[in-house]
């Protein structure tokens, strides 16, 4: 691999360029017509305009990206996250053009991207999945299935999605009426009354395991805890997950390696799980076959460069580490800094960054895509960068994070910095007493419009 085409934008493009250049690989950055001034375009060895501002005509235009990669003399394509990173057709098109796709094969992307298929693959590898009906239930079969799953359970519409068409059953007596109502509702809403059942985990944590594989061996790089979410978007991530006992952590990470090995996984991947603190059980939910936004917390505790590992593996090299050489040390926390106003329902806030101060000191890192004078385009997501801290203990990391958040300054646009400054003082965050619905309830109580927030008002 000599010349890498970056089919993405924003902070992850910057991140990829840094690792590629450190390995002596030159870079060509794809840019839309709206992105000529982005930081990645300034850092890359060269840029190619791949299409108009709208992502559907640029960063999602597979044919234009492949052509640009070929014409600019690249021999490999890194898809980043989002956009076409988990698009099997794009991976196949890259390979068909004689280029290396930095990620797993199209076949694996397709297989693990299909929720049903991924669940079956996990089951076959002995990885626990959320107990549920395998497919649809009828009023006749529902009782027997409910008996197996246990209560409370969720009735979900087969044709639903994104939280729509879900009912929770607490007591067995309710099951029959709830099923009938859910079926009628699903038929009205989706034109399909089909239902399936799943165990309802009241207070779930979101934990996930980073794996890397070279097609022959798979290792895990330990787990991350990402329960602090708003509308299913992660806001704050940590490694390791302090809620897990050592034996549970070991079993969780081993299960991820087992699943990765069962498909001869090649590249970086993340297995996402729900963790039920009451029963101390974890359940596989899905796999992402790409780099993730929150990979830096893993890098901070393991000392590994996950993007470099991806590039090495794509170039046909073996993993640089064996499992017994992967050592987790200390604790890392990442805060996502978005151009959103947390005091106004997280309204997106595009504009010009007038001032920008990056905090420093030991264990402090910022992976970002902004600079003073940068105009944030309106066409893409709101992630400006990620503030990441490391400490020997979680307490030490929180102390560094508190100072780094106080130092950090972004002017010209509203950001989520005030939210993080409040979170870092919150007693439940300090104890990691959180679950996936924790932040939304906390926001309603502490950060609703007009509320000054626990640390007082002031726009930053």
């Amino acid at each position, binding site marked *: 691999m000599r010349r890498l085409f970056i089919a993405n934008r924003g902070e992850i493009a910057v991140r990829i360029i840094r690792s590629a250049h450190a390995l002596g690989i030159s870079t060509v950055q794809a840019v839309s017509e709206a992105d000529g001034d982005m930081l990645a375009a300034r850092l890359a060895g060269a840029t190619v305009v791949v299409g108009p501002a*709208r992502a559907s005509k640029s960063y999602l235009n597979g044919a234009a990206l492949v052509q640009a990669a070929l014409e600019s003399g690249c021999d490999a394509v890194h898809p980043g996250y989002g956009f076409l990173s988990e698009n099997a057709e794009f991976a196949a098109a890259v390979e068909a053009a004689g280029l290396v796709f930095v990620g797993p094969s199209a076949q694996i992307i397709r297989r693990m991207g299909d929720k049903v298929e991924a669940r079956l693959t996990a089951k076959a590898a002995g990885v626990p999945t959320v107990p549920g009906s395998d497919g649809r239930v009828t009023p006749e079969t529902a009782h027997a299935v409910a008996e197996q799953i246990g209560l409370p359970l969720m009735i979900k519409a087969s044709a639903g999605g994104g939280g729509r068409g879900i009912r929770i059953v607490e007591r067995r007596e309710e099951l029959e009426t709830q099923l009938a109502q859910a079926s009628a509702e699903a038929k009205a809403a989706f034109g399909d009354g089909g239902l399936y059942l799943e165990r309802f985990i009241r207070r779930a944590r979101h934990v996930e395991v980073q794996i890397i594989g070279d097609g022959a061996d798979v290792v895990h790089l330990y787990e991350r805890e990402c329960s602090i979410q708003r509308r299913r978007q992660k806001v704050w991530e940590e490694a390791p997950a302090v809620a897990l006992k050592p034996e549970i952590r070991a079993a969780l990470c081993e299960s991820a390696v087992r699943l990765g090995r069962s498909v001869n996984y090649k590249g970086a991947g993340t297995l996402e799980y729900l963790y039920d603190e009451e029963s101390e059980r974890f359940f596989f939910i899905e796999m992402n076959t790409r780099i993730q936004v929150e990979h830096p917390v893993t890098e901070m505790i393991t000392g590994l460069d996950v993007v470099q590992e991806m590039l090495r593996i794509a170039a046909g090299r073996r993993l640089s580490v064996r499992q017994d050489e992967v050592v987790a040390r200390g604790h890392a926390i990442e805060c996502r800094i978005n*151009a959103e106003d947390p005091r106004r329902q997280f*309204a*997106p806030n*595009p504009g010009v960054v007038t001032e920008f101060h990056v905090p420093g000191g030991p264990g402090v890192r910022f992976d970002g895509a902004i600079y003073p004078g940068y105009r944030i385009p*309106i*066409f893409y997501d709101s992630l400006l960068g990620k503030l990441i801290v490391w400490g020997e203990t979680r307490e030490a990391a929180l102390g560094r994070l508190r100072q780094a958040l106080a130092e950090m300054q972004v002017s010209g646009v509203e950001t989520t910095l005030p939210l993080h400054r409040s979170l870092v003082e919150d007693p439940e965050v300090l104890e990691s007493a959180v679950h996936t619905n924790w932040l939304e309830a906390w926001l309603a109580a502490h950060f609703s419009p007009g509320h000054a927030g626990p640390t007082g008002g002031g726009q930053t």
Partner: protein
Amino acid sequence: MAVKSMVSPVIGQFYSRPDPQQPPYLQPGDAIAAGATIGLVEVMKTFTRVEAEEAGRFVRYLVEDEDMVMPGDALFEYEA
């Protein structure tokens, strides 16, 4: 009956239809109820619904589907 217009509350990309495969929310002459959806404005992958402030009769869109709009740009005309 006076012809009035309604402006965009935000900067973004205007959509006169729920998705590219569907017809526009409104055709000239359509009756509109207060609160009815007239279009969408997308900014940073977040969609803001543009809702009719009052009941009336739709006259025409003043911007094209997928046009960039600024806060205060007139989006459509209606009679009320």
